[in-house]
């Protein structure tokens, strides 16, 4: 029988330490049945179930439906971590809890946020976007005007250039995936392509850059090549269907698919076309990366191919040996993710993970890998490739080129940026998960 043959195929281990063929995911119930009949290691049948009973909520009238629904009161732990709750004079950040989420879309309230002067309270009626400089016709737009332009919707990630910076530490910092990789999120962004607006302003051929500036307190500004303006830069007005969140730049932000988060200027109010870059504080100082020889990278722009496992991850203890699904996200600023491999033995052997559709360019791609944990020590890793032929590097490869700290910094520190290396989670015999270097 062809089906039973597939049962057997899908039970085949594809790599060491219990990684199973990703085809097992095609019909999980079938796999369970097959596993039991095949007498595979690990009990697939739990203890006898309690008799089924009704909860009180099933026997009473429920609550009034609210105008704007928020998560169940039982989900109060699914929140961002904030690192400047008192809004003292410095940057403020909120990180996405990847270990508690699924799929590829980050809920709006859980999208990561970094603000350099608090979250501005912008009246959308009074907000203006002006495009000037090396244009033929400087124009100013209201939000109402922009909302009448042809719009496009695209799903894509935004990632802070400093996401994953704790992995520059010389020793693995014991923190969860939210603390290590929480400065990346993925949404459906809807707005007007910048190229559409530039058709109306006209472009002086001398223009090589545009400088985007926000209406926030520090008037944050970044220089972006005109290439990106004509390619896929968007003035985004909507995030997952609703107007973008205050932390995301309400009422409008620049969205540059695949480019360093800080360049995706929030509260966008001014675009200046220029011959030269501004060499702004954020591009010429903060988001320039020092190299071991004392030189520094400037204009890194690209968020390179990367993946990490969100489940299991530190804090999500495995309760017993048996079947688990390893899953996480992979993404690349270059384009689509083409392959993700997973290892359960610290990189000695690898198996292909299933890539869940849709697999979109410059967007989170959810990968899944069936795993039968035998209760012994394991080191879980994921590694991604993109359609540009780029392979996610190991941590050792990045450190060899970029350096590491001499002692562990605070988990909130940013020793450098643009870390896209492999993350390793060690599972011990108690099922507890730790961050390790492997």
């Amino acid at each position: 029988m062809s089906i039973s043959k597939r049962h057997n195929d899908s039970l085949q281990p594809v790599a060491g330490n219990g990684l199973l063929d990703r085809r097992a995911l095609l019909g999980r119930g079938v796999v369970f049945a097959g596993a039991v009949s095949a007498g595979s290691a690990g009990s697939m049948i739990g203890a006898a179930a309690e008799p089924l009973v009704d909860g009180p909520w099933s026997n009473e009238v429920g609550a009034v439906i609210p105008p704007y629904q928020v998560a169940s009161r039982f989900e109060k732990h699914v929140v961002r971590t904030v690192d400047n709750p008192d809004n003292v004079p410095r940057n403020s950040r909120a990180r996405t809890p990847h270990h508690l989420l699924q799929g590829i879309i980050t809920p709006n309230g859980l999208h990561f946020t970094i603000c350099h002067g608090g979250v501005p309270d912008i009246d959308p009626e009074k907000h203006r976007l002006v495009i000037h400089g090396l244009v033929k016709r400087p124009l100013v737009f209201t939000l109402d005007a922009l909302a009448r332009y042809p719009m496009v919707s695209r799903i894509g990630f935004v990632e802070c250039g400093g996401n994953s910076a704790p992995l520059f530490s010389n020793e693995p910092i014991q923190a969860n995936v939210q603390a290590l990789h929480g400065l990346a999120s993925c949404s459906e962004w809807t707005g007007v392509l910048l190229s559409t607006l530039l058709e109306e302003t006209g472009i002086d051929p001398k223009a090589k850059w545009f400088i985007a500036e926000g209406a926030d307190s520090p008037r944050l500004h970044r220089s972006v090549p005109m290439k990106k303006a004509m390619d896929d830069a968007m003035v985004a007005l909507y995030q997952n269907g609703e107007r973008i969140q205050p932390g995301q730049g309400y009422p409008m932000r620049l969205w540059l698919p695949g480019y360093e988060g800080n360049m995706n200027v929030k509260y966008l109010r001014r675009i200046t076309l220029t011959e030269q870059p501004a060499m702004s504080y954020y591009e010429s100082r903060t988001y320039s990366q020092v190299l071991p020889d004392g030189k520094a990278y400037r204009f890194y722009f690209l968020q390179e191919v990367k993946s990490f496992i969100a489940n299991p991850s530190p804090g999500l203890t495995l309760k017993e040996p048996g079947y688990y699904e390893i899953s996480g996200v992979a993404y690349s600023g270059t384009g689509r993710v083409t392959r993700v491999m997973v290892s359960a033995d610290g990189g000695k052997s690898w198996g292909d993970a299933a890539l869940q559709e849709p697999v979109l360019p410059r967007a989170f791609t959810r990968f899944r890998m069936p795993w039968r944990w035998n209760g012994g020590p394991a080191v879980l890793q994921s590694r991604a490739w993109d359609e540009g032929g780029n392979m996610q590097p190991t941590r050792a490869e990045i450190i060899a080129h970029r350096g590491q700290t001499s002692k562990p910094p605070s988990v909130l520190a940013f020793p450098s940026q643009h870390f896209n290396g492999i993350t390793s989670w060690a599972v011990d015999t108690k099922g507890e998960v730790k961050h390790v270097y492997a």
Partner: protein
Amino acid sequence: MSTRNAVLVAALLALASSTAVAAEGPNLGQPITEKEVGAWDINAMPDGTGLPPGSGTSAQGAPIYAQKCAACHGEGGKGASAGALVGNPPITGIESPKTIANFWGYSTTVFDFIRRAMPWISPRTLTNDEVYAITAYILAENKLIGPNDVMNAQTLPKVKMPNADNFIIRFPDRI
């Protein structure tokens, strides 16, 4: 009309209509002059473009710094809750602090960032003269200019920053 002429006319008509379509965008932006943008235009560029009239010296900047900046950046720019503004440690790797003297590539960035974003709790409350004076104070304390040098739209862009030539464009093909 010959066939050839008919084709030509059709082609011209098609061209005219496609031009008309291109001009039929929403056109909902309101024209504005650069002068009207002026109050918002605070970009000070590396070549000096956008630097406003005004001037200042380190001596003028010292008391303004003490009053407006020292609470966060420390006395004499030594750093406190916010980063140090004075100091020139060698850059030897990712743990080296990036200071104005050891890292920043352009003197205009100092003026630009003070004018646009400082003081953190009350940005854009300084006059242009005050921004020039604080800029002069910071540059002089870092020994990047002389103690009596006047900073203005002409002199500031000429200040050579020691680390200016140590940057590598990461992905040149994206520019």
